[in-house]
């Protein structure tokens, strides 16, 4: 997942999956009106079946995925396309605020989560970053993950300490992310390189996806993901 984009000049190809045609049109217009065309929209889909078909047909670099759709949502698209197309990267794009929705899409394999009110410029930036192998944590996602990994009294015992706890450093990085800091600012604050910040965030993503922690498992099992 860490190989860089094929060529620096070539725009990242993107498929939009959202059941609202109006919203797809808005996002597409916004991405295409950017001065630097780093992202090019090559397909759209309005349902899970369509998404599976379009992704298989177009083989995009990145899929911008709505969490909520009438016929199963982003998690369904992920579970149906990831086995056949392991190279495609998914970035969740949603208006949903519910932690369990966000966490379950992440656990289904999305590499990040941004809210729909994100600006076109930031969205393009996030797309390029997930394509390059980064995880994209919006402040809200960082907050959810911190909450899920919080050591509450009364929480079930830790099953796998390697996976079920964040290191102190990862926690620091997440906290700054939740405060709305950029990777560069975090790197400067913690006196580490931007690359190290990225490594920490990727590691947090991996732990979020595979940890057996009670809170995470519960969210996932509610959605029949595990």
């Amino acid at each position, binding site marked *: 997942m860490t190989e860089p984009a094929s060529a620096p000049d070539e725009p990242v190809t993107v498929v939009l999956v959202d*059941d*609202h*045609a*109006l*919203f*797809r*049109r*808005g996002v*597409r217009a*916004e991405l295409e009106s950017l001065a630097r065309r780093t992202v090019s929209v090559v*397909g*759209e*889909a*309005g*349902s899970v*079946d*369509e998404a*599976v*078909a*379009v992704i*298989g*047909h*177009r083989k995009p670099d990145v899929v911008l995925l709505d969490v*909520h*759709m*009438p*016929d*199963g949502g982003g998690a369904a698209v992920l579970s*149906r396309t990831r086995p*056949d197309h392991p190279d495609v990267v998914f970035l969740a794009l949603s*208006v*949903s*605020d*519910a*932690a*369990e929705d966000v966490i379950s899409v992440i656990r289904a394999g999305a590499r990040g989560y941004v809210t*729909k*009110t994100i600006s076109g410029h930031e969205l393009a930036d996030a797309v390029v970053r997930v394509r390059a192998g980064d995880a994209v944590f919006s*402040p*809200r996602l*960082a*907050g*959810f993950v*911190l*909450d899920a990994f*919080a*050591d509450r*009294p*009364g929480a079930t015992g830790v099953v796998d300490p390697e996976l079920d706890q964040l290191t102190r450093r990862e926690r620091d990085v997440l*906290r700054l992310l*939740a*405060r*709305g*800091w950029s990777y560069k600012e975090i790197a400067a604050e913690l006196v580490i390189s931007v690359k190290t910040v990225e490594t920490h965030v990727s590691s947090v993503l991996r732990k979020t996806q595979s940890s057996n922690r009670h809170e995470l498992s519960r969210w996932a099992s509610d959605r029949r993901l595990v």
Partner: protein
Amino acid sequence: MVPVDEATTLHTGTPPVTAETPAPTPAPTPTEPPTRPGPAIPRIRRRRQGAVIAGVTGGVADHLGVDVLRVRLVFVLLVAAAGAGFVAYAGLWLFCPIEPRGVRRDVPPRERRQGLGLATLGVLLAFILSGLGGQLSGWVIGPLVVVVIGVALVWREADTGGAAVEGETGWRARWLVGRRLGLLRLLAGALLVTMGIAVFLLGNVDLGQVQFGVLAALATLAGVVVITVPWWMRLVRELGTERRERIRGQERADIAAHLHDSVLQTLALIQKQAGEDVAGREVRRLARSQERELRAWLYGPPGGDAGRPAGSTDATLAAALATAAGEVEDDYGVRVAPVVVGDTELDPNTTALVAAAREAMVNAAKHAGVDEIDVYVEVEPDVVEVFVRDRGRGFDPDAVPEDRRGLAGSVRDRMTRHGGRVRLRTAPGEGTEVGLVLPRSRRGTPAPATAQEESR
């Protein structure tokens, strides 16, 4: 719209053969009904339509994929084997669910006649055989037949709830499946059962004893009914209430899902598309405010613990902070996105913290010249921290201009009065972050085991 063949081939994992299938167009598509690929464990489901007694043999035939006539024959033969068929049939009747309504099947009249004949044959066979074997005396067999038929009638009625089956015509529809005669059938069944038992008793027991026994039984029964009347009433009422609650919950979930998929999306779109002029800003402010209200109704307080149901009390830090953020959003037309980790109750100290945070947000909204403010709250066992961050113009803290008095006076004083402190990070052009730190007194918290958190 994607061509159907392409979608289906991809669904099964094989790549489409034709390379020139047109790329799916971005046209809006009607959403399809949810297709949930459930685990395919086939269960025996009794047939609703085309059943002679309870649809058991039909269900077994469907399950095994054999002709229903064979299954019926096997059951009849089993009946001959010391009545095992009866037990098997009754067991399957009790434990197998009936198939859902609306499954249409064409049952030829011949099959039904055959089934009816076989059922009669089986019953007769059982009694003849048992009579021949001398296991049961004639006195027992006669009443037993009556009782079995009565029980079958009553069970059948209770089973289907007397609902009419579509597609039934003629005498059968009128006498066996019609809704109107349900009560009559029920009574007839009960009568048959009683008669069977009565005949059985009369034949075996002395008449005087029977009279006494019947009276005693009736008296007991009446007593039990009278005593348990309130319980029955409550049961009925509770059933009704529970059903209403369930329907309301379901309705609410449907409405929430619908609002989420339609109104919230539209509000997000409006915020993105609104222009930068005065009118655009006003539209954006309104859309944001509506989005926040709807979100609070759908998911509980924004930024708070998402597991909490909507409409819970306002008396927590997360909820109070969300309210404050909402007010600032409305008053100044900026987006305030609170992210909250953990939560705690409101006491005078945390109330002051919320007020200070609100002041910091107002400051950022007024002076930073941006339209988005990040707010992060983390509640830990020994400290509560709030960070209000903007990416605006920032300022030189050593040369605080007059209009920044709000920060110094209101925020800093408030915090120090309640034992907290303010950490300010800012520089011209680099935005501002106001960090509010409030140590928590251990007194108020219901002392959780502290060892676990001490390392922080």
